[in-house]
């Protein structure tokens, strides 16, 4: 390798002997448009080689370039006093005190999971873990957010079984607990399931490292698994609809090796700790291409790669294949000068090897050599800089879709009042989206690392951070039905609910990561949904004062029967402060008999877009519940304050299925966590139709249980903070009674359990 490359005139780019004819047809096959093909020829002033075309096609794919979403995402608040790293890196990083920080991110692996559920989901977990540990953070918690079609459908059952086993198989082996998540079932996700994986890690401030290549002459090193032909064009595959031939693209799905990941994790953290590195990055989507381009771009440098030095698992691979492979468990790093041997020694301890595959240059160009022959020579800004005129940002047209007016109309007067409220509650409790998810989370090790304070099955999962004595609460949430019927409000609600889930545990929400799952953005109606949801999310994040520090966009989520519901999944992370030296997260379940039950927030007759309407009346329509962001912010502050004062025994967010479902869950979900199973009598002294009051999903409401001794202080706190609060009942007995002036229902805890538990047994 010549050190003097930068001072010599660049050698001429040559086609590789294996290259086919490069033309518009090939560009199209690689997912590029005619306009983009023209733009590439313009940028280069010549026809690209096949390797160059491949690099352009993946770097400009929706998946890697965010060309459609970027102009919209600028509205998110991304700054704050805790933010050490905002969006644009492998993961965002927040200060959590005591010299410690947390890094986290959520990412989709939808298309691969729809085609090959086990490996698709497994490699989704692997990818997000690498994003976290390449920042220097040790991953200590995983969450996931899943969307499937109806669970009675055999095709869907196969997906659920595969995805859950894949998430568990990978996360369990790497030794990172999967502490929570959510799963929602709706026919719109039948052909395009959603698998969004979240990972969170912790790091001492000084260990923070970025995916940067800098320092001319520094070695670019490749570590981890060998490179094969798997996953070639995975990024492109993720940037198109899931059509009928998608099954044939199974070769675009990668295969995971969690043991290799575990070794990489330990070796990477040891390497970062050693101080031998300048930067490090995961080879995720678009593998060696995107990692090398992005590292050089962030470091304001150039990079020369020699693909013949890349370790391979298959023979006869050509530069195009090596550059586009998405083989898993590989990383690219830049070592400090003269430290290559030391890097190698650490890797060897973990049974791994490093190969020097290139050098950092000052050329601002991304060059690929094969056996000394220059096969690709591209300007980095055109590939990675969305501010550069050569970068193909897509300002796609938006149009409010016609379905909305009709779908939002719901005349409550014409909606039959159920004669059997109890039967309705049992039906909603047994709806797979609402019902207990133990079948899923017991396949995940949720306790390894001995930090899990609140296990799966509460509003938020809470873990302790041994290193600084604090706790971190986390939740993922996103309601596609709300976003379908009112994207703007749905976006706000998604942020509000995930933050509320964290706040009810007593933790102050400090940061968000989001995964935006939408259909084909070339459809102006879907693009409008996207723009509106993002606006709504930004409004809520701003008002609640919680920055978005990382995220991912997944478009083209649609099968032959159309697009999924617009589904932003919001991951919220909250900081739990110790009280008198102890971490005491507030769980969702009633703890014991004899406590008072309070409802905080205002209840309105809002049945639109709810779970009750869908399950009992078969309707997916209506006006989405209104969110008052100022009231929401106050409520969340109250939740945190009451927890810090130790006033709340339990606190449960009211969401799908409203007060009735929340109350039932408060009664029966504690038993698994060593708490009592306890009934309650709850009366809502408010006029209105009973089903709307009991099942309506008015947001910004929380059901608390409070010890009688603390009642006065609790009420005073609510008053001082301007939060509407009603005493609605008390805990005790083995039945749940729910009443409002018009009607009431009563059922035994055994009946609740019969409906709520065991819904997924049939999947065994």
């Amino acid at each position, binding site marked *: 390798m010549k050190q003097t490359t930068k001072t010599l005139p660049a050698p001429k780019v040559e086609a590789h002997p294996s290259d086919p004819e490069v033309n518009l047809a090939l560009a199209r096959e690689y997912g590029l448009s005619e306009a983009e093909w023209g733009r590439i020829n313009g940028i280069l002033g010549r026809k690209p080689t096949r390797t160059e075309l491949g690099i352009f096609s993946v770097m400009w794919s929706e998946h890697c370039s965010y060309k459609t979403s970027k102009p919209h995402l600028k509205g998110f608040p991304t700054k704050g006093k805790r933010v050490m790293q905002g969006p644009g890196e492998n993961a965002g990083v927040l200060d959590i005190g005591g010299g410690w920080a947390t890094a986290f991110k959520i990412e989709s692996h939808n298309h691969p999971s729809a085609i090959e559920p086990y490996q698709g989901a497994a490699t989704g977990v692997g990818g997000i873990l690498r994003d976290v540990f390449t920042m220097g953070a040790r991953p200590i918690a995983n969450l996931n957010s899943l969307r499937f079609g109806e669970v009675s459908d055999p095709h869907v059952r196969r997906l659920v079984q595969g995805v859950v086993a894949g998430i568990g198989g990978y996360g369990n082996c790497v030794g990172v607990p999967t502490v929570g998540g959510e799963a929602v079932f709706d026919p719109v996700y039948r052909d395009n399931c959603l698998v969004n994986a979240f990972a969170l890690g912790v790091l001492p401030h000084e260990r923070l490292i970025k995916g940067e290549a800098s320092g001319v002459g520094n070695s670019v090193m490749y570590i981890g698994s060998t490179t094969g032909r798997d996953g070639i064009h995975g990024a492109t595959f993720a940037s198109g609809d899931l059509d009928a031939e998608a099954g044939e693209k199974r070769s675009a799905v990668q295969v995971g090796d969690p*043991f290799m990941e*575990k070794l990489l994790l*330990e070796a990477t953290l040891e390497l970062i700790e050693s101080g031998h590195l300048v930067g490090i990055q995961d080879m995720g989507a678009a593998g060696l291409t995107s990692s090398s381009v992005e590292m050089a771009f962030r470091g304001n440098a150039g990079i020369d790669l020699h693909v013949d030095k890349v370790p391979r698992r298959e023979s006869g691979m050509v530069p195009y294949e090596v550059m586009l492979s998405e083989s898993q468990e590989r990383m690219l790093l830049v070592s400090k000068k003269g430290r290559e041997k030391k890097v190698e020694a650490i890797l060897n301890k973990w049974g791994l090897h490093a190969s020097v595959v290139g050098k950092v240059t000052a050329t601002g160009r991304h060059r690929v050599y094969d056996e000394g022959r220059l096969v690709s020579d591209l300007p980095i800004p055109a590939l990675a800089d969305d501010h550069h005129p050569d970068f193909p940002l897509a300002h796609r047209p938006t149009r409010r879709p016609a379905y909305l007016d009709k779908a939002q109309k719901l005349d409550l007067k014409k909606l039959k009042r159920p004669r059997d409220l109890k039967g309705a509650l049992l039906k909603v409790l047994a709806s797979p989206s609402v019902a207990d998810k133990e079948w899923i989370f017991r396949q995940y090790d949720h306790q*390894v690392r001995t930090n899990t304070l609140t296990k799966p099955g509460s509003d938020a999962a809470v873990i302790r951070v041994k290193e600084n004595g604090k706790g971190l609460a986390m939740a993922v949430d996103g309601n596609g039905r709300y976003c379908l019927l009112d994207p703007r409000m749905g976006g706000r609600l998604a942020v509000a609910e995930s933050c509320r889930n964290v706040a009810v545990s007593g933790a102050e929400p400090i940061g968000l990561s989001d995964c935006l799952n939408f259909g084909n953005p070339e459809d102006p109606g879907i693009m409008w949904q996207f723009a509106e949801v993002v606006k709504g999310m930004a409004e809520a994040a701003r008002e609640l004062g919680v920055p978005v520090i990382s995220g991912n966009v997944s478009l083209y989520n649609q099968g032959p029967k159309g697009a999924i519901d617009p589904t932003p999944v919001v991951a919220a992370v909250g900081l739990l402060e110790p009280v008198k030296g102890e971490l005491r997260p507030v769980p969702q379940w009633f703890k014991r008999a004899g406590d008072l039950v309070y409802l905080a927030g205002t209840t309105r007759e809002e049945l639109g877009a709810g779970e009750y309407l869908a399950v009992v009346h078969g309707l997916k329509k209506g006006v989405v519940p209104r969110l008052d962001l100022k009231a929401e912010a106050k409520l969340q502050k109250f939740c945190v304050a009451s927890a810090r004062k130790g006033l709340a025994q339990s606190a449960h967010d009211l969401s799908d299925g409203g007060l009735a479902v929340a109350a039932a869950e408060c009664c029966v979900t504690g038993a698994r966590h060593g708490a009592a199973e306890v009934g309650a009598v709850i009366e809502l002294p408010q006029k209105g139709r009973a089903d709307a009051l009991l099942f309506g999903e008015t947001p910004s409401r929380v059901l608390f249980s409070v010890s009688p001794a603390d009642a006065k202080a609790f009420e005073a706190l609510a008053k001082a903070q301007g939060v509407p609060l009603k005493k609605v009942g008390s805990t005790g007995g083995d039945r749940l009674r729910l009443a409002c002036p018009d009607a009431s229902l009563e059922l035994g805890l055994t009946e609740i359990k019969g409906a709520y538990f065991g819904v997924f047994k049939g999947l065994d």
Partner: protein
Amino acid sequence: MKFAVLEFPGSNCDHDCVHVLGTVLKQKVSLVWHEQDSLPAGTDLVVVPGGFSYGDYLRCGAVARFSPVMQAVVAHAKRGGLVWGICNGFQILTESHLVPGALLRNRDLRFLCQDVHLRIEGAGSAFTPAGSEGRVLRLPIAHGEGNYFCEADTLKALKDRGRIAFRYCDAKGELTPESNPNGSLQSIAGVLNDKGNVLGMMPHPERVAEAALGGTDGLVLFESVLATLSAHK
């Protein structure tokens, strides 16, 4: 008292065991890398922790058995030293023939992470408090291959010698089909070697050694070990 916790490539519960022994119980504990061919001088108890040693390739525990450190552990056990295998550690001990039997895939072929009840059985050992036979503990399991199996004559020997350490049971201590999570033969959750100085068990006592984590039943076993060792010092 000196404790050693083994660390294989793929060990996941090594630091959890160190945390309980070192931070919670304030004992001297060191991690021992798999390539070391000896244990720290004066080691009283070796913990073979859970995880996926060597990726569970070939068979759980099958590769770990041949690691240099396991040769030292076998020698330690032969000298009468205490060895405690938890989860993957139990699998490694069966592969190393330090305890009898084998761990097969769970009856339902799925990974299971949940709390179970365990009944303390047998003739007693360093790992359980004196006179605790019949006592019920609540501990978590987290495994895909914990379905205990052994040949009929081995089972008879285990029973005759009181070397079945724990059985899965219900909250009252009854052995029921529902309380056997993984299909283990006769609900066996842990066994001792013939001399009683080596214990292999699937549940994770180190995960319930602090009240904040939802229980302290795991401490019962740790404290028993400490009591036994201090009585011999």
